[in-house]
Structure formats: C-alpha cells, structure tokens
C-alpha cells in the first residue's frame, strides 16, 4: 500500500492523507494526536507542509495518546458467545429470542444485569456509555441510521427514568427501539423495600407502541414475540418491557417450562398491506389532473426500504420529490426531480402525495399553499385524515404502494414544473452563497454560516465521495445554517437530530449510535463501513452529553463532533433585552470543550477564526481515518451573531418540508 493511501473497507473511492491535509498554518490544536514519532513515522506521511508544521508546533506540548483500554476488551472480543441451553434463566430465554430476531445492538449502562449480561453472553453486541439517556439516544440513532431494530436498557428506578427522554424522542421520530428496564421483585411492590422500586407502565404509556410488565419467566419468549411483532410491523415506534426480578431470575429447566415457544416465522408475518385498486386509480387520476404534483417522501419510505420504487415512480411520472423525516437521503438531493433544496417552489404544488409521513403537519406547517390537494399513503388507516384534509387516503405499506403506482401510472410530463423546481433550487443555492459571502466579513469569531458552507465544501466538493459521510444534523441556532448546506445522496446519510421532539443534548449519544452503525456497517450503512461520521451540535447540547465523548473514545469510533460554542443557550436571543433574565441563558465564556475531549481520551481542536475551520475539519477527518479515534472541534462563535440588525442575516427560520425541516 502506498504510504499515503488509506483505503478503508467498503470505500467507493480511496481517501488519501494528502487530500485531507490542512492548508492552514493556524491550527490551534491543543493535543498532539499525530505525534511525530508515532503516527506520522508509521505511515510515512508528509514530512513537509502545513500539517507537519502544525504537528511540529504541537509536539512541543505533551504528545497525546489514546488513554489505555483495559485488556478485558480484547479478551471479551475473543470470547466465543454462549449457546443457551436448559436450564436457563428467564433473562437468557429473552436474550435468546432477541438474538433469533437479529437484534443488532444494545446500548446501555450497567444495570438490569440479568438481561443485559445474558444478551452480552449470547453474542448480541452491547455498547455501554455514561448515561442511560445518551444510550437511549444512541439506540435511536443506530436504528435511524440502519433501519435495524436496536435496544436500550436501564436499571430499575433512576436508570429507567433516565431513559425517558430517549423514549419520548424515539416515539416522536417513530423509531422502532426496544426499551428494557429492570424492576424489583413483585413481592416488594408498594413496600419501599430497599431502593429503586417504581411502577413504570403509567410513565411510558403515551410514549410507546406497546408495553408489558413481565412477571413470569415462562412467558418471556412469548412476550419477546409480542415486542418484535410491534417493532417490525406497521408504523414503527418504540416498545417498552418492564422486567421484574421474577421474570429475569427464575430458572427454566425443561422445554415444557417455555410457553408459546414458536419460531419467529410462526409468530409474526412479513406480509404488508397492499393498496386497494380503487385508491390506486383515484390517486393516479388526481395526479394526472395536476399541473404541479409533488411527492413528500418521509420516514416510512426509509423503513419500508422503498427508495428504488420511489425513484421508479417519480421518474416515470416526472413528479418531483421533497424529503422530510427522521433521516434523509432516500431520494438523492442531486436528482433532477429533487425538490428538497427548492423551498420557494413548494407553494406552487397543486397535488401533494404524502408517503410515509407518520408525523403529520397541520395546515400552514408545510409550505404547500391553500389550493393544494392531498393524497396520503400510510400503513395505518386510523391515522389518515389527521391534521390535513385529504382527498385520497390509501392504506398501504409504502413500498407496496409505490411499486403498484410505478407499474400502473402512465408516463407523465411536467417539464415546466420541473424547470420551476430547478430554478428554485438555484435560487436557494445562490441565496446560500450570498449568505456565506456576507458572514465571511465577521472575523472576530466563527459564524455558523462558515461552518455550514465549508463543511459542505469538504464533504461534497472535495476529495471524499459525496455520499460517503453520515451526518448527525443537530443544534438549534447553528442548525438553521448547516441544514441549508447539508445534502443527502443515499439512504440515511443524514440523521435529523432534533426531529419532531426537539431534544437538546441528544447529539453525542447520536454520534455513538450512528458511529457504531457506520463503523460496523450495519443495515444501509454497510457500503460505508468504517468511515468517519460527523455530528453537529451547539454548546448547550454538548453540556448534556459531552461525557459520552469518553464512550466514543472507548469504542474507538471515528466520529467528528462539531460544537458550535457561542457561550449561550439558543434561547438567549429572545431574552437579550431582559437584563434580569439574560444570565439564565448564558454560560461562562469560551469554554474549552476541546480540552475536555482530550481529558476523556479523544482529540480536541479549538477553532477561533473562520480560516481555521476547514483545516481543523481536514485534520479531524484524517485522524478519524487513520486512527479510528474521535475528535471534538470546538468552534468559537458568538451569540450576537443571531442579532440580524447587527450581524445580518441573523437568526434564521425554516421552510418545511425539505432541507431545513425538522418538525415533521
């Protein structure tokens, strides 16, 4: 192998160290994560140029190395999984059922020991972090990034309550995650014996698709079947299982001890609802009448893996597609029919086909005008007609519907409409470029528009294949810029962080889950196995979950975390003229999150000037490729950039659906 050629597994195009080399000499790395005697010597990488200068300068500081990882990790990786045999505990029986269902990953903290240990022993990949909340977000992101069911777990009492934000978030995003929490013995119920006793079902009842308190180990296989039926059919959503001590601990001795012990092909079906011919005819008739029809492709298109059928239908009928949802890329942003980056055209649509739009907007929340008429395709009849008045409601699996529509619909032409979409896309791109030129004038800190534009240049117009890098798109104020520039070219290239529930602080957890998904090549990330991921967030979010940087480092996840550090909550802007209120929305200034990352075994870069951002990004990416270690890029901004009178364009809003959407 050429010393400068670092081809990763599954890469469509090799990534060369030279290609990623920083061009600036102004990097302010506070950690030498490319030590002269270590990585550079080993790789024979460039000995001259800006990078080596930066490294040379940094090497005056203490050379950074990953923190020691206990040998137990390597031992565990070599240990063969156990094959469960009778007698076994209820926990092992449940783990066996999960394994048979192909449960892809469990994200948790220590606790719920019988179940999580049984899962680890049986060979289900288990990843532990610092906080159950972040681990539940990791599971959410893993499933959003892969399409595969994952699980998260918390111990009884506080471990369970820590899961709640993640559960609510997953419910809002319609993510099929299995939430498991242990509980004390049934015999202790209501007695306040010891600690951590808590009734769980009433807490989660509005946040799950299905829930069950397990009290009898004999029926654990049966209830695992209930859970996976819910997780793998219909509209996806989380499921909660409350594991009492009895359900986990009890020993099962004979095959007769296991109730309803069917194989998964006998307890659930792969069948999907198909569209009725009448509704297909009505939909096609409405689309044929339309001058400017449009398809909204949302979360359900991803989970039903309907992207090929969507493309076939759109191309045959020349109907543009705009994306929304918890993940993006099912319809590539650079397709000639993509309207995802054409916000100004959306109000022209006269017929809108919503497909897989589980989270429904109300009138006025989507940009379609008052004359638009709606077709909705959804697997759940009971949801059709909610929020938006519809003219055709088609009950169907998304993929099945699109396949039938692609087959039955006649070829159509909408040349003028497509031209309008393209013109709107160009206008949007031109506006973004103008915005970038405008914010480049602000030199005293880094404006989010610089991050957005230069990140896009690096990802899509540099030396990395544009479809390669998964993005965790989070943040509040900063996201209003980055979303305008981020693009998706393949399924789940973007995980839409704040989607629907608007959780602050989920993002490092997302980086863990999405990072594992890509690092190990699960589901739709298989072709991108091993590549770095990038997650964007604000400083408020990092404050919640920054400790999971240690998890990223421990798990050797090649993740890049971009923290937009403007010393304030995103809410500061609206309180700026309320002197007694303002301090509630502020942090200490110029916090060194990069140093925190270093202390936790990751790498850190502090960026204080606009011209430093791209070199920092290049360096972090290079490090991720070469060492599979994470980097936190702490980008120093200033809160006053939200003030449009002083720093136009100031705080931005959004138009939905499309590239800036995250409500629906």
């Amino acid at each position: 192998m050429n010393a400068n050629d670092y081809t990763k597994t599954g890469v469509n195009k090799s990534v060369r160290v030279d290609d990623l080399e920083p061009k600036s000499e102004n990097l302010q790395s506070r950690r030498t994560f490319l030590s002269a005697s270590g990585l550079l010597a080993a790789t024979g990488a460039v000995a001259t140029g800006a990078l080596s200068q930066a490294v040379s300068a940094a090497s005056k500081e203490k050379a950074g190395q990953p923190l020691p990882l206990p040998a137990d990790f390597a031992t565990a990786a070599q240990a063969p999984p156990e094959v469960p045999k009778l007698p076994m505990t209820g926990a092992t029986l449940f783990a066996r059922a999960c394994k048979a269902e192909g449960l892809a990953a469990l994200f948790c903290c220590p606790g719920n020991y019988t179940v999580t240990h049984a899962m680890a022993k049986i060979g289900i990949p288990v990843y532990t972090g610092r906080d159950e909340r972040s681990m539940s977000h990791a599971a959410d992101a893993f499933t959003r990034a892969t399409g595969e069911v994952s699980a998260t777990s918390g111990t009884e009492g506080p471990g369970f309550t820590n899961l709640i934000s993640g559960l609510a978030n997953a419910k809002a995003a319609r993510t099929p995650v299995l939430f498991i929490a242990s509980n004390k013995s049934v015999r202790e119920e209501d007695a306040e014996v010891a600690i951590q006793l808590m009734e769980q079902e009433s807490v989660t009842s509005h946040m799950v698709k299905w829930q069950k308190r397990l009290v009898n180990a004999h029926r654990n296989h049966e209830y695992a079947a209930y859970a996976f039926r819910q997780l793998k059919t219909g509209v996806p959503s989380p499921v909660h299982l409350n594991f009492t001590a009895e359900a986990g601990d009890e020993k099962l001795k004979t095959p007769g001890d296991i109730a309803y012990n069917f194989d998964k092909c006998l307890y659930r079906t792969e069948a999907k609802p198909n569209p009725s011919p009448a509704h297909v005819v009505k939909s096609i008739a409405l689309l044929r009448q339309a001058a400017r029809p449009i398809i909204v492709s949302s979360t359900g298109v991803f989970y039903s893996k309907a992207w090929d059928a969507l493309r076939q239908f759109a191309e045959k009928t020349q109907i543009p597609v705009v994306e929304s949802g918890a993940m993006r890329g099912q319809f590539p942003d650079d397709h000639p029919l993509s309207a995802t980056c054409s916000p100004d055209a959306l109000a022209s649509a006269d017929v809108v086909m919503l497909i897989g739009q589980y989270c429904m907007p109300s009138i006025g929340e989507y940009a379609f005008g008052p004359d638009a008429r709606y077709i909705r395709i959804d697997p759940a009849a009971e949801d059709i007609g909610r929020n938006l008045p519809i003219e055709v409601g088609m009950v169907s699996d998304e993929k099945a519907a699109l396949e039938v529509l692609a087959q039955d619909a006649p070829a159509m032409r909408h040349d003028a409409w497509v031209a309008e979409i393209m013109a709107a896309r160009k206008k949007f791109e031109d506006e973004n470029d103008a915005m970038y030129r405008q914010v480049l004038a602000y030199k005293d800190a880094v404006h989010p528009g610089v991050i957005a534009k230069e990140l896009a240049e690096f990802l899509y117009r540099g030396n990395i294949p544009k479809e390669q890098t998964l993005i965790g798109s989070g943040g509040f104020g900063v996201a209003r810029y980055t979303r305008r520039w981020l693009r998706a070219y393949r399924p789940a290239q973007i995980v839409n962080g704040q989607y629907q529930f608007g959780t602050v602080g989920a993002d490092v957890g997302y980086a863990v889950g999405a990072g594992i998904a890509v690092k190990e090549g699960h589901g739709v990330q298989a072709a991108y196995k091993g590549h770095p991921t990038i997650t964007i967030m604000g400083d408020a979010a990092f404050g919640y979950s920054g400790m999971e940087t240690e998890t990223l480092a421990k798990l050797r996840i090649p993740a890049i975390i971009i923290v937009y550090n403007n010393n304030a909550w995103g809410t500061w802007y609206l309180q700026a003229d309320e002197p007694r209120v303002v301090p509630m929305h502020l942090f200490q200034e110029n916090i060194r999150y990069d140093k925190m990352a270093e202390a936790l075994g990751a790498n850190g870069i502090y960026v204080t000037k606009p011209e430093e951002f791209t070199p920092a990004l290049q360096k972090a990416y290079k490090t991720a490729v070469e060492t599979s270690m994470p980097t936190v890029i702490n980008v120093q901004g200033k809160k006053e950039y939200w003030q449009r009178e002083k720093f136009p364009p100031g705080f931005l809003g959004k138009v939905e659906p499309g590239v800036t959407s995250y409500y629906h």
Partner: protein
Amino acid sequence: MDKQSSAAAQSARPHAARRPRLDQNTSSADGLHAVDAVLNSYACRSVFQDYRMKRRKNGTGEYNFGWLYGQPFTLTCDLRHKRLSLIDLLPGVQRDSLMHKQIKTFLKGRAGAGVPEHRRVDPRRMRALARARDGLVSLELTLAEADCEAYAIGARKIINLAHELFLFMNEYWADYMWQTFRLGME
C-alpha cells in the same frame, strides 16, 4: 347570499360550493359573491374553519375565518376602491422598521418577472401592499379591474400571497412568528 354564510351550512352538501358567476355583468353584489365563492371553497375543503361572510352597510364585504396557526383572519372586499384587504395580518410591526421594509421588499418581489405566472402578482392586474398602521400590518391587493373574474382571481391571490408571506416570515423572522403566534420557539 345576503346574510351570513358558513362552512357548517355548506358541509351538509360538500360538493355544492358556489362558483363565481363569471358570465354575468359586473355588479357590486357579483364582486362580493365572487370573493365569497372562492373563500367558501377553501372552507368546504376544511382549509378554513368557521367561515362567515357579512355585508357591511357601506357595501363592503367582510369575511371571517380561522386559518393558519388557528388564528382568526378578516378579509374585506371594498368594491369602491377595488381593494381586498387581510386586516391586521401581522401585529407588532412598526412602520418603516427593518421588518416592514423586508415585507415590502418581499411583496415587491412577488410581482417580478422571474416569478412563475401562477404565483406572480401581475402588476397589470393587481398591486400588493403591506400597509402599516398603529403597529399592525394589513395586506392589501388593489385590482385593476372590477369585474367578477377579477375579484375571484384577487381573492385567491391574496390568500395565497398571505400564505407565502407567512412562509417568508417563518424563514427569516422565526422569532417574531414564535412570539406573535405562540408557535413554540424550539
């Protein structure tokens, strides 16, 4: 319809939305009816809630309905001045403030030659204005013609224009929209 009409009355026969009587000679009643028919068609499709029309003594038509963000909207049709107005559409906007200037620029842009024909405020047929008075912005559309068809087109145009104005405000003045319409600031 001389007195109040309502979506509720129409909902019993949802396909019976009245059309503007385009084949008749222009009259003040026709202009008001034309507007009523267009707005009522939105009500029949449940885009508007609780739609009502009333005729003022001066011959002006007033139309009330619930629409975006559950807000009440009032549209007036002034036949004497050939003007349709969405009254007090945006509160808390001072005359010639940055926001007011941007709103005026936005409206001016909708008349530009580059705007698609189905979206354009065609200056040969109508003119849009954001009138600020006492901190309240009303959206006005003054028509070049006074025939029934002009009022029907104008009614549809001003509703679509208001929708687009709200999109613009959501994109560039999100904080104002949150605070004014209680949309939630996340």
